[in-house]
């Protein structure tokens, strides 16, 4: 049994789900609005003879059907960034404003972090954290190429993230307005991009990473001001890593789920899995399957902190 067969009871069309998971994904780039507009990027790609197609849901997300995103002038200038289509969703759902204080708890290698910076107009304070120092160098490289100047990079375990290095006393940061938890996960939804994603899959791994996810999401809620927003996302289908994590945190922290306003098609979160029942509000989360939008698989939920 492949991991995908576990979820065939959850999907509307198992055959289409299987077929989509077997198809490779086209290269997709996001326009970096810190340095360019979608118009200029399209013009520059045309000048270079690089075919591109707009996605039907976002003018700043382009498919390159015959090319890899790396060896062209728009990339060299940091005008575009290779980023899978569906992975553009969580930063859009978090929807930060210029001037916000934002924490990206699991930031490396930085596709979503740099997207958050662009959504903030490169203004306000963006903290990009990751526990893996090696991956942080990729984050820093990407952020600099894309011209991000509002990012502070930290190297902590997000489960007990400390605000002290940001000067929590006095003029420093005592809480965030918005937090993105794009959690480390079993990556089942990335199979179209990484055909070896299942090589390391095991139920033990799913359970172990779910424990980490619960710890990170709890800390994210704690570090957010009342009325602030936390977005939780994974690129996996396992309810253990998705709805069960939300259920755990809803029970222990002061927060509630709110509707996800998504430009991509998806289905509600599941309230029951292998004999476990979850808080009914997990239905507000969004499950995106590869056959719904011809993308990778994804899970995204939005929480409001405080009563």
């Amino acid at each position, binding site marked *: 049994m492949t991991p995908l067969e576990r979820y065939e009871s959850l999907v509307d069309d198992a055959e289409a789900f299987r077929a989509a998971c077997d198809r490779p994904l086209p290269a997709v780039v996001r326009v970096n609005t*810190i*340095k360019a507009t979608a118009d*200029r*990027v399209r*013009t*520059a790609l045309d*000048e*270079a*003879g690089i075919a591109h197609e707009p996605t039907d849901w976002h003018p700043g997300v382009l498919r390159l059907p015959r090319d890899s995103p*790396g*060896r*062209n*002038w*728009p*990339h*060299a*200038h*940091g005008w575009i960034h290779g980023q899978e289509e569906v992975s553009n969703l969580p930063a859009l759902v978090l929807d930060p404003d210029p001037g916000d204080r934002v924490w990206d708890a699991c930031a490396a290698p930085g596709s979503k972090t740099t997207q958050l910076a662009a959504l903030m107009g*490169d*203004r*306000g*304070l963006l903290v990009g954290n990751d526990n893996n*120092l090696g991956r*942080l160098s990729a984050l*820093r*490289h990407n*952020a*600099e*190429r894309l*011209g*991000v*100047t*509002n*990012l*502070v*990079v*930290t*190297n902590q375990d997000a489960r007990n993230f400390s605000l002290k*290095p*940001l*000067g929590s*006393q*006095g*003029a*420093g*940061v005592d809480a965030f307005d918005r937090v993105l938890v794009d959690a480390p996960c079993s990556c089942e939804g990335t199979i179209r991009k990484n055909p070896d994603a299942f090589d390391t899959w095991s139920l033990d791994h799913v359970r172990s990473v779910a424990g980490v996810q619960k710890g990170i999401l709890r800390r994210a809620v704690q570090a957010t001001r009342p009325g602030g927003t936390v977005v939780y996302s994974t690129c996996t289908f396992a309810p253990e890593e998705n709805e069960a994590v939300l259920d755990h945190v809803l029970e222990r922290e002061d927060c509630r789920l709110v509707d996800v306003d998504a430009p991509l098609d998806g289905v509600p979160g599941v309230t029951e899995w292998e004999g476990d029942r979850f808080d009914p509000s997990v239905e507000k989360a969004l499950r995106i399957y590869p056959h719904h939008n011809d993308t990778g698989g994804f899970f995204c939920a939005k929480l409001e902190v405080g009563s």
Partner: protein
Amino acid sequence: MSDAPTNDGQVFDRLPATADDREVAGRATRAEVIEWWVDRFGLPADAFDGYTFWEKGAGKVWIFAADLPTPVDAEGVGMTFLRTRQEHWKPTTNAAQRFGREATRNVIDLAPDEARRFLAGEDLDPAWDGDWGYLIVAHELAGDREPIGVGLYVHDELRSVVPKGRRASVSPPE
């Protein structure tokens, strides 16, 4: 033994506003950094309003769009911006790309083939009768001038100082 503060290479310390505020010997000031970009590249004097400047490492100056109490214990604060504490100050490739569009002086415009070779790390021999030293290297892209990075012009030669991680070979248009 002096008790004067020294540069700690491990933490981000804010640059002093002016020479009168300087406590750490050899540290560039905010006023000097802005003045250098205005003098060297003709940027408007208000180009860096709202940014803070920090030093971490010997002479490595970072530009940050927000503010925090100094010092900051982090892996990165904003973007690496300028190398000081050496005979000639040197802007980073990323700073040239991000802020070099506003430059009106010491910008060299390359032809398409030269631009491709410069990005790949090759030294060039372009026509230039301006200053020697670090130049902002630009080309035309999508109808406008766009800075690629920094070149060192000496002895009638333009040396590409694009860092290895930013070098790339770009195919000519089909």
